[in-house]
């Protein structure tokens, strides 16, 4: 089956920044994304777990979007402006999709 090259961008970020990030992505022309809950993790800022959180202050989410390779730089610039000062990880990987017109 015919497949098309695309970029998969995964941004793990604080829950309080979710709307700001997705807004920035839409502003950069991203037509679709998926927001996933994050259960727990550990990194430079220490351990974190969703269990027992009383406020949104410490929650994390992951925003995943798949885009055409030529739109990657625009997306990363928009995302970086939001995530620069915050805890999180931005990861880009190559992927292939079946229906290129959707991205």
């Amino acid at each position, binding site marked *: 089956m015919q497949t098309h090259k695309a970029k998969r961008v995964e941004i793990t970020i*604080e829950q*309080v920044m979710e*709307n700001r990030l997705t807004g920035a992505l839409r502003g950069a022309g991203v037509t679709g994304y998926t927001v996933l809950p994050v259960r727990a993790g550990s990194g430079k800022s*220490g351990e974190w777990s969703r*269990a*027992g959180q*009383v406020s949104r*202050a*410490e929650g994390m989410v992951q925003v995943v979007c798949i885009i055409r390779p030529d739109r990657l730089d625009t997306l990363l610039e928009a995302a970086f402006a939001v995530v620069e000062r915050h*805890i999180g990880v931005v990861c880009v990987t190559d992927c292939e999709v079946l229906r290129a017109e959707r991205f």
Partner: protein
Amino acid sequence: MTEILALAADNLISPIVLSFALGLAAALARSDLAIPEAAAKALSIYLLFAIGFKGGVSVADHGIDLKLGLTLLAGVVLSALLPLLAFGLLRTMSGMDRLNAAAVAGHYGSISIVTFVAATSVLESSGIAAEGYMVAVAAAMEAPAILSALWLISRGESKARMDSGLWREILLNGSIVLLVGAFLIGMVTGAEGLSEIDSFIVAPFKGVLCLFLLDMGLVAGRGMQKGRGALNMGAVSFGLLMPLVGGAAGLVAALLLGLSTGGTVLLMTLSASASYIAVPAAMRVALPEANPSIYLTLSLGVTFPFNLTLGIPIYLAVAQAVTGG
């Protein structure tokens, strides 16, 4: 003094405090006991609705007067000024850097609605009435402290990130909307409205509060474990002293306003409590460089347990002694 100790002892063996202690002990013992996230959310929605509704009914019974407006104003002023006091005290006691001290200070001007709910429950158990509009005062005290914290930051080298979205999130956060909304519903429907739903929002209230505080104990205990090492002795001492300072400021304001004994206890409790919901979320957006382990451990792991176990009985005893109630 004997009276305070007796009140504290009674409070310590109440189901509410013991439920909190159970959660705290379970978390510190690393038990896997957990309240599901959705259930904890449902419990908090119930408590906010019930407390807001009952406050509104009380205002409907007694009517709106000038004192309501003045108490609201006093709440806003206390919330705005307490962070300045907290900032100076914390810097002096712990030597904490300006950024983190300002972030912590914002928490101590804002309020903990769970501490407020626990204080209303203690008042009900003691048969002491309070002004119903104190619920509205609680809502009004959430946000001004955040402004003060950001002002403290702006005087240093760091910059806070503020946008219109953040203001909407602060002023229209779910807890405030629910609390104020339920208050207005209670005010409109009055005693008749209460009689229609009292079997739901009055009788089960304390049981639900016990379960919620069990969860809060678990959260506080896990927060203490995670935050171990984040605080020095000076910061911990601040977390125990600041509620008393805030409570004293609340007492002075209540006396100037001529609040009842119950109202005085509630204003003292509001002034003594520290936020761990609205302000931490705002600080993560506006001041991401501030360390959440410091402000969450202080407000949730030090001040909240102190207020719940010893603070509220102290505020009650002092208010009774001063107002003669």
